[in-house]
């Protein structure tokens, strides 16, 4: 009797396959034909219930918190510096490149009660958490809903792997064991970030680390929106943290994607990216019926390129699908978007396809720019940092241009702006694209 369920499951599956197979020809070994169009062939996504953004913050090479970001954006002051991170391997010189390094992390020890979580990444996670009223907004949400109804959904690409790298450079016992000070298992796993943030905040809702490379901390908004809509949480702390480490510096270098000068997004002579580190958060909360918040998450769109692990789809199709779905969920037309923070890494391939995708979707009036010239590419934190920049554009009515870039690439449409503008806008978007062809776009509003 005990195996009757599995027999039944198999019978059901068999019956289902028989019923479904003629309608759905399999494409198991082939590629499905790529539509060169973003028209919906299946039903479009449902509109999403808007979520309040009760607080948001970013800490980057530009400084700690929103005021530091806003003033550097306004003054066109880059946070990039010549790479001064000494490799762990003895006798190796730093890579010849520019980086967006957060000052003062070396002196920003975690509080004594959290010292077992010590790592550069968790320090930046903690430091970012102390800015711009995030803790106060969380305390208010806990008072309203209880800690078990607030989710922690954070993104990263490398989490605390910098600590693992360091351990490998100081192994003991014939190279078999970690040094005692780094023999702390919770650091050496991707969930180091999510577990630390949950511990540091005391939040008890679902806690997860999203690691889809450079789209990670944009996708956290989408996942939180679904979780809240499904009733599993009333609010969420979303965000992302990534810190500079050997893996990303030498890894991107091995792919020949790193520029030896400050990056120049969408410039005709761009040669690659500059890496950076950053942390940031947003506190999202369910809106009561009829309630409006000062800032809202209105839409998200996610897609896959289905093309290559480290090169974007040549027609930017995945990027277009993500932007289309974000605007559909927000219930807005492309003409209503006032500012779009581009992924704009300054690699030749990314910026080319993103420019194509923007030109295909948006009218000439859109102000779109890449802010990577200020911060560098902060990888798993890019989603939250550039969402914060989009929210700043809504709130402070300053639309940043593109730093370090001089000669527009001929592929750029008129949407891609190098100069800043001061305009009141209602909707702002952010694009984040990652390895594996993983894309996410977000729509924010100032109602």
């Amino acid at each position, binding site marked *: 009797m005990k195996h009757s369920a599995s027999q039944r499951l198999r019978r059901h599956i068999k019956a289902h396959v028989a019923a479904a197979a003629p309608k759905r020809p399999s494409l198991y070994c082939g590629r499905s034909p790529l539509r060169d169009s973003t028209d919906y062939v299946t039903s479009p996504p449902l509109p999403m219930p808007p979520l309040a953004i009760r607080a948001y913050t970013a800490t980057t090479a530009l400084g700690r918190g929103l005021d530091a970001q806003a003033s550097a954006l306004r003054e066109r002051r880059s946070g990039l510096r010549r790479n001064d991170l000494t490799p762990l391997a003895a006798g190796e010189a730093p890579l010849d490149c520019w980086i967006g390094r957060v000052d003062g992390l070396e002196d920003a020890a975690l509080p004594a009660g959290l010292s077992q979580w010590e790592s550069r990444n968790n320090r930046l996670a903690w430091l970012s958490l102390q800015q711009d009223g995030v803790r106060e907004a969380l305390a208010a949400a806990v008072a309203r809903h209880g800690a078990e109804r607030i989710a922690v959904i954070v993104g990263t690409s490398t989490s605390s792997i910098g600590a693992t790298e360091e351990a490998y450079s100081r192994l003991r016992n014939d190279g*078999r064991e970690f040094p005692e000070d780094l023999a702390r298992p919770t650091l050496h796993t991707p*969930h180091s970030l*999510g577990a630390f943030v949950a511990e540091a905040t005391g939040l008890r809702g679902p806690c997860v680390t999203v690691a*889809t*490379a450079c789209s990670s901390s944009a996708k956290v908004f989408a996942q939180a929106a679904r979780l809240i809509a*499904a009733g599993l949480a009333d609010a969420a702390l979303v965000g992302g943290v990534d810190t500079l480490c050997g893996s990303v510096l030498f890894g991107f270098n091995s792919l020949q994607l790193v520029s030896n000068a400050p990056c120049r997004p969408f410039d005709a002579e761009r040669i690659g990216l500059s890496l950076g580190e950053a942390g940031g958060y947003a506190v999202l909360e369910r809106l009561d019926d009829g309630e409006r918040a000062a800032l809202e998450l209105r839409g998200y769109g996610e897609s896959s*390129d*289905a093309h290559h692990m480290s090169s974007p789809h040549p027609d930017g199709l995945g990027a277009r699908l993500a932007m289309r779905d974000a605007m559909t969920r927000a219930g807005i037309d492309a003409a209503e978007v006032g500012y779009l923070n581009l992924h704009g890494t300054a690699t030749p391939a990314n910026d080319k396809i993103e420019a194509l995708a923007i030109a295909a979707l948006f009218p000439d009036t859109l102000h779109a720019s890449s802010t990577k010239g200020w911060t560098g590419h902060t990888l798993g934190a890019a989603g939250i940092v550039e969402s914060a920049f989009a929210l700043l554009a809504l709130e402070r009515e300053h639309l940043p241009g593109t730093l370090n870039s001089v000669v527009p690439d001929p592929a750029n449409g008129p949407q891609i702006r190098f100069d800043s503008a001061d305009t009141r806008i209602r909707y702002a978007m952010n694009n984040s694209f990652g390895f594996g062809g*993983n894309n996410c776009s977000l729509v924010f509003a100032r109602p």
Partner: protein
Amino acid sequence: MTASDLDPPTRRTPALSAVIESVGYWSRGLPTWEAACAFAVHGDLVADAPARPSPQLLAPNERRRAPETVAVALEVALAACQAAGRDPASLPSVFASNHGDMAITDYMCATLASEPRTISPTRFHNSVHNAAAGYWTIGAGAMQPATALSALDASFAQGLIEALAQIAAGDEAVLLVGYDGAATGPLQTMWGSDGLLGAALVLARAPAGRRATGPLLRAWLSDEPPSPLEGKLSRREAGNASAAMLPLFDALASGHDRLALPAGGGRTLRVELAHD
């Protein structure tokens, strides 16, 4: 009194539901879900089972070169889609792994400590936690959203929550994959993980008023303790970093209907299965 009477879904812990249309499974010695079911019931192993999956979705040269975590994830994902009669390109996907590919983490850290300028570009882009998700979408031609999550022991439960939330948000069906490989090098002194394990579900919106095409799953957050790893599949793969998901697969294989998966922070995801 049953377990669900003790801690039922409430307004503050609402239940999400879906139909399990199909299951994919791979571990050494149990290379299919049918083999896993037979083992769970009779204890039979498959003779001459392959030591490594050979995911048909990848080109032959990629099949050999892919990290084993990618291979096992793609193997079970494709098996689940085939069993459900679903085109892999049509499904959004959720990939949950506790540690990702620890062999690549070990390689990256060891190389950085000695010869950082020799890092392999392929192994670098394979080091991202969403490598399996990326290869899956490329191989399947799936432009649907894909995500990659980690939450230690709670990875699969959090993946299940995300998959159910996607269905609640309007998706008709979602592919969920859980997998982990073996720990290697000095890293294994921090986190042990043995063998190679992957399991996948195709979850679909429960049809209203029509007969379901598989067991109906309901899940909600709870403070009950997690189910012990005492089923046959759970005991066999207890050393793998994804073993925490196995009480669900033991229940599916043996017809049990109640379990609790670790969901993080001392909480669990209570799961109830209605085998119709």
